[in-house]
């Protein structure tokens, strides 16, 4: 959507080194540098993170909620992908 505030960006924040980047929210900015600065000022005023990713919202591709059922269907009946599917003798430890 055209907006005098610049395009919309998605903000992802890494809380601590080694942890995944988690979606925090959105900001408006005209370019990458401003996007990073605005994300910092908006979402990390209390040291909420050690690193930030920003990506223009128009570049996000998302699965559609209506197709949730069929989209994730292939994983629905494969309980053998989980460790608890398998019987291990009681005498066996560390497995």
């Amino acid at each position, binding site marked *: 959507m055209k*907006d005098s505030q*610049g395009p919309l960006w998605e903000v992802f924040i890494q809380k601590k080194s080694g942890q995944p980047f988690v979606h925090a929210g959105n900001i408006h900015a005209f*370019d990458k540098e*401003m996007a990073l600065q605005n994300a910092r000022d908006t979402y990390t*005023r209390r040291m909420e993170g050690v690193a930030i990713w920003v990506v223009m919202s128009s570049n996000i591709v998302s699965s559609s909620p209506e197709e949730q059922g069929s989209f994730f269907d292939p994983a629905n009946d494969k309980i053998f992908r989980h460790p608890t599917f398998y019987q291990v003798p009681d005498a066996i430890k560390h497995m």
Partner: protein
Amino acid sequence: MKTLDFEQLFESKLANGEMIEPKDWMPENYRKHNIRQISQHAHSEIVGMLPEGNWITRAPSLRRKLVLLAKVQDEGGHGLYLYTAAESMGISRDELLDALHTGKAKYSSIFNYPTLTWADVPAIGWLVDGAAIMNQVMLQRTSYGPYSRAMIRICKEESFHQRQGYEGMCALAFGTPDQKKMAQDALNRFWFPTLMMFGPPDKESPNSENALKWRIKRETNDELRQKFVNQTVPQIDYLGLDYPTNSGIKWNEAKQEYDFNEPDWVEFKNVISGNGPCNKERIEARVKAHNNGAWVRAAAAAYAEKQKQKSVAA
């Protein structure tokens, strides 16, 4: 899927306590109600910067000044979280701001009252932010995902706002007689406007029914107002201040809560519809700030465009 199926899916999500996300199908009225409520909330944060901002340059100490600056900056941040939550429902920031600037959109009536003395700053932190928190804690579990996530973030930050306010009230209430008088005066002036923040009584609240049905709100205006009074009266007692004139605050042993007088709902309607003490001044300040920033936005857009051309050429 047919509309009927979509509607069933929407209703079943609400019934199961699931969140509605931006790409989910939703009834048009649900969208409208949320856009109205979230944007009013965003506007309130932004306009709320003005009465307190009034005292930044005159804060009584460097410590209080730093705290007030941080608080006002937080309010700006809260406005931004909320604007983008509203935008996720398909309305642009320009449209939202335009509605505020032209008086089409409302914001909390409380910010149309003036801040006459320094004591108003701690009183706002204590009472106004206290009332806001009551509402916002409930809204953390609102049914629209982006709104809920914004509220969770806001609640984490808001607690500092209320605590710094009460600390400031203590400093005045336990200070010189003149300081105590200032604290009392601020409490007297902000008591009823704060009670109005929860909105009209349930029997006259036009938007409440849908808000509860759709789990946008989970408690009624009157329930929240009572909760706020129960929580706040002991805090007045601790400060050693008198109950505000005509507040009618009295412990009700049978109900195990405080009785209190309703605010003047005619005044509330007047302030909401633009005739409060500071409505005109607040909107003028917003419009002026927005217009004064126009050249910055234009320059930033031109710069971004130029950089894009350069990278294409390279």
